[in-house]
């Protein structure tokens, strides 16, 4: 469990968070959403120790981490920046992925095993000798994830990982996210994409007005259309169509397809 207790934070004299209290289950995929400037990235940076809260504490599995530097926290939490170019420096994909476990003092054999596993998980095993800077954006983003995974974190924070990616790369990344979660890695996902949020998140936190304005499941969030609009969020396509067709709430295209098929069947029987 990741526990944020009474967190307040100001930046350049502007209050960003005012007494936030939230518990995040680190076995689930938790999406963080909200309008631009509501502090989504700031919240995750506070968790990662890149910024220090003005008041309050952050605990990970009962251990206070809010006063720990990020290079120590890297053992437990992997953080993937929105822009992968911020961290790529090595001359090969392999050495890039190997940086974190070696920097954390992991045994070389174990580090190599972890690097290989991370590269297999992220579908980069056949590009080990490639130069990171020459990869596509999607590959770079997955390399950043591999680099974090090689340190075997308990929790992975992804800051808008799908931004700027094409459909195929997006699908690969989301599939990877699900796979990692099934392996027991908790995921905090910052996203503006409501379709991804509806389809992949187990829990949702919505930030608004310096606090957490909503906490619950995607289904609970999108049930109330007015609240969703008030929070500055768009409805996912499947939810919008299911509303328009006066169907039961559907979060994913697959769910929508099934509901439409059932209705057609029912209409067929009635006729």
């Amino acid at each position, binding site marked *: 469990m990741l526990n944020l207790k009474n967190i307040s934070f100001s930046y350049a004299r502007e209050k960003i968070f005012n007494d936030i209290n939230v518990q995040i289950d680190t076995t689930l995929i938790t999406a963080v959403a909200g309008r631009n400037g509501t502090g989504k990235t700031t919240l995750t*940076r506070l968790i*990662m120790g*890149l910024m220090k809260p003005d008041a309050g504490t952050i605990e990970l599995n009962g251990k206070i981490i809010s006063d720990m*530097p*990020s*290079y120590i*926290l*890297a*053992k437990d*939490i*992997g*953080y993937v*920046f929105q*822009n992968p*170019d*911020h*961290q*790529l*420096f090595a001359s090969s994909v392999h050495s890039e992925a190997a*940086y*974190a476990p070696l*920097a*954390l003092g992991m045994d070389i054999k174990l580090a190599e095993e972890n690097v290989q596993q991370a590269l297999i998980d992220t579908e980069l095993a056949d590009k080990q000798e490639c130069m990171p*800077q020459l990869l596509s954006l999607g590959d770079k983003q997955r390399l950043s994830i591999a*680099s*974090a995974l090689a*340190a075997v974190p308990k929790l992975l924070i992804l800051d808008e990982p799908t931004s700027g990616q094409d459909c195929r790369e997006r699908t690969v990344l989301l599939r990877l996210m699900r796979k990692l979660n099934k392996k027991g890695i908790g995921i905090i996902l910052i996203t503006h994409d409501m379709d991804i949020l509806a389809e992949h998140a187990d829990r949702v936190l919505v930030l608004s007005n310096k606090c957490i304005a909503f906490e619950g499941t995607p289904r609970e969030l999108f049930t109330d259309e007015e609240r969703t609009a008030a929070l500055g969020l768009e409805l996912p396509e499947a939810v919008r169509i299911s509303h328009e067709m006066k169907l039961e709430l559907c979060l994913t295209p697959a769910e929508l397809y099934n509901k439409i098929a059932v209705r057609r069947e029912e209409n067929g029987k009635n006729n």
Partner: protein
Amino acid sequence: MAKTISVIDFAALTKLLMALTVSVASLCTASLYALGILIFLELFCAALMGGGKVLWKGIGALTVFAVVLALIQLLFGTSLFLAVGSAYKMFIMAVSLLILVATTPTQSITASLVKQCRLPYDYAFMITAVLRFVPDLLKESKEVRQAQACRGFHSAGNPVRRIVDYMMILKPMVFKAISRSENMAISLSLRRFSDKKKRTFMASTKLNAGDYAAMLANLLICIAAVKFA
């Protein structure tokens, strides 16, 4: 952007010439009194022209750097007079440039370099582009450092080890700078950069009485400081 309050606003050319004369004057004298007068002149100008928190923060950092520079020279056996003198000179030249950058829009500097100093536009643009990207680079270096810290990067130990460690920060920045300069070149070409020799500028370069007075006063103080101090 920090809010700036300026008592008086000089043209870019005035500030450029003032920076140049003060820097040349500091190089022409070894007298600590003269250098002291020049420092006082610069700080007075900084207060007069505004520049806000950024400028004063920069001046604070340069003061610390000047002290460190003097101490290092003293450690290596340089006389106190020379050590303090060279720290003063470094401070004067850096602050004059800082005042110019912090209190003048880059478009005004470009316009002034081209229209009044007759510098080819390509070169003037190069100078102002460099000035324009310094804050961006600083911000970027912070982000890169944070991204690496998330992977366990922590620079500690002896200075050689630290320098090697900093390659992790420098490399992504160099790659990004190259990619950014490529994008910028393409974007400029698409907007007909250097297509015509004659171009117009939105920034005004007109000098008023205050500018002439400031240039004259600055010149006289510099000459007096060098000649008589």
